[in-house]
């Protein structure tokens, strides 16, 4: 079968996270495909709107329940704009899962540091929920999140909720605070001053590359190994199967070799702009 084949799925739930960000629950219509479908935390699907186009979107629901796939979509262009209008009962297209996923097995029994930035990051929401559902398998959980302005902090109630979970520490910072800001002031790397973690911790990051690059430096200074720092990269993807060429990052195809890379793998590339 062609690797481009699209499978129809029915929207079974729609939730507005914040204006412009929607989470959709969907089920593949074909029973055989649905029961055979498996994915790992951090993998993504290509979602399709009939006649409009396709976009790569990470799966945020739990891999233990692969018959229901949840995707959080931020309106960023023409295709996601159409997707924002999807309603319960609509038939949409799914192709996947693609990509490698988060190193959740390697993280078992260890302290986990999650670093995100910017306008929220769906891949880490799925990861955080994954850890909460298996809380005993993981050590302390540190969630660090940096935004430019307080208005960019899209999931404030969610961070407050996470903060109340056992063995969970939430650190927030902004470059440009307003009067309501109760958290730290400064770029995301300033959060690392507060962070005390054993060097055996594992780190997973998602967000602007400049932020991840600076964060990786700070984490290295804390004695965390390059192989224990993972980053989720974003590139243009049109095929998701390593053939269209758009997602190349020097020798890496972000769609099939990533989207999650160890810092050791990509640190040399971070030093150069325009790759």
């Amino acid at each position, binding site marked *: 079968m062609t690797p481009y084949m699209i499978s129809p799925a029915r929207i079974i739930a729609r939730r507005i996270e914040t204006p412009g960000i929607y989470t959709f629950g969907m089920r593949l219509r074909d029973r055989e495909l649905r029961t055979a479908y498996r994915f790992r935390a951090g993998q993504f699907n290509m979602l399709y709107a009939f006649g409009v186009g396709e976009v790569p979107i990470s799966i945020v629901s739990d891999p233990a329940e692969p018959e229901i796939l949840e995707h959080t979509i931020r309106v960023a262009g023409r295709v996601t704009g159409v997707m924002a209008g999807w309603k319960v009962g609509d038939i949409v297209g799914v192709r996947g899962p693609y990509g490698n996923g988060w190193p959740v097995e390697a993280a078992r029994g260890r302290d986990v540091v999650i670093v995100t930035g910017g306008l929220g990051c769906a891949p880490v929401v799925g990861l955080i929920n994954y850890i909460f559902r298996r809380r005993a398998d993981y050590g302390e959980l540190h969630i660090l999140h940096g935004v430019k302005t307080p208005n960019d902090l899209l999931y404030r109630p969610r961070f407050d909720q996470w903060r109340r979970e056992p063995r969970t520490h939430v650190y927030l910072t902004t470059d440009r605070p307003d009067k309501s800001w109760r958290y730290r002031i400064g770029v995301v790397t300033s959060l690392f001053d507060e962070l005390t973690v054993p060097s055996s911790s594992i780190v997973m990051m998602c967000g602007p590359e400049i932020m991840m690059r600076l964060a990786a430096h700070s984490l290295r200074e804390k004695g965390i190994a390059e192989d224990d720092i993972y980053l989720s990269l974003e590139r*243009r993807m049109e095929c998701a199967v390593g053939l269209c060429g758009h997602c190349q990052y020097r020798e890496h195809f972000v769609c099939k070799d990533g989207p999650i890379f160890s810092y050791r793998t990509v640190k040399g590339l971070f030093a*150069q702009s325009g790759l």
Partner: protein
Amino acid sequence: MNEPLKLPKMKLPKTALDELMNLLWGEGFKVLGPVARESGVTFEEVRKTTDLPVGVRETQEPGRYRLSAGSAAEIFGVVNGAGSLKPFFFAPEETLLEVRRERHGFRAVAAPPAAPRLAFIGVRACDLAALAVQDRIFLRDRFRDTHYAARRQDAFFVAVNCTRSAATCFCASMGTGPEARTGFDLALTEMDDCFVLRCGSAAGEAIAARLAPEAASREQVAAAQARIDECAASMQRQLDTSDLPRLLYEEAGNPRWDDVAARCLSCTNCTMVCPTCFCHAVFDVQEIDGNMSRRVRQWDSCFSFEHAQIHGINFRPKIHDRYRQWLTHKLASWIDQFGTSGCVGCGRCITWCPVGIDLTEEVAAIRAGRGKR
């Protein structure tokens, strides 16, 4: 230089070429060969020797291509044109899926290509090597491309070993020619009065047997090999492939990239004529009645401004970035990705560059300026 192959060689009179084409048409192949068309050659349907550019040669220089009169009896005097084998297997534009609207929802149906069995006459070693590179990408990577596979499966290739090179050729540097080593069914070396013939497959042997070739004498075989060796030795361009991929990885900051970026128009010609470039766009085209949408694949180029653009970010906004991406991919990261260089030394990107940028010269300049910042 390549070691000569130790396979039995035979001899065919030049008139046997007509018979070969007849046999292939008779076997149900659509037979394609180089045809002089306006100011170049393209692979088109051929039924007889006179359809081929007999007595024609070409001159190629950076940014320049001209057909000219060659020696009268020479059938395969033109080394190559802008078109390689690529478009016949990796189509410039094709429909991958047809998505039909249904009462509730839609259904996607694969749109397999109408794939005639193709036979090619006069394929050069570089283009066979390029096809092997495309096979690695489309057939032997993690995801097998069924459209490419359908077009590719029954193709028949009659190679012609090069006995002259264009000024832009550098296959000897890339280890891909001028002699066809693999990937052909039959290979011809054109001599003044005959072809020296070699079979490369069982299908080739079956066709060759029907042409009743004579055994080639030791002298004829040696003379054919001498022409190929002479072609390799006289090649005007070289590309030093030593220490790749490392050279280009380490030299991402070399000032030569600024120099070439000032000349490059980012026109995409080099990627369109390249026999191995595989980048493509995937998009959806809705029919006017709104009931059917086709998923289309179309050749794309890393020189397109939008190639590495996502919402709000363009990872390669400058021509500097895009030329470096193309050359680094072609000669370096391709090796890490697919275990082979993406360059076969056909020289098309040099000839068909409107400003005559020569990648062999660019690599030499980067190598000479190693460590400069």
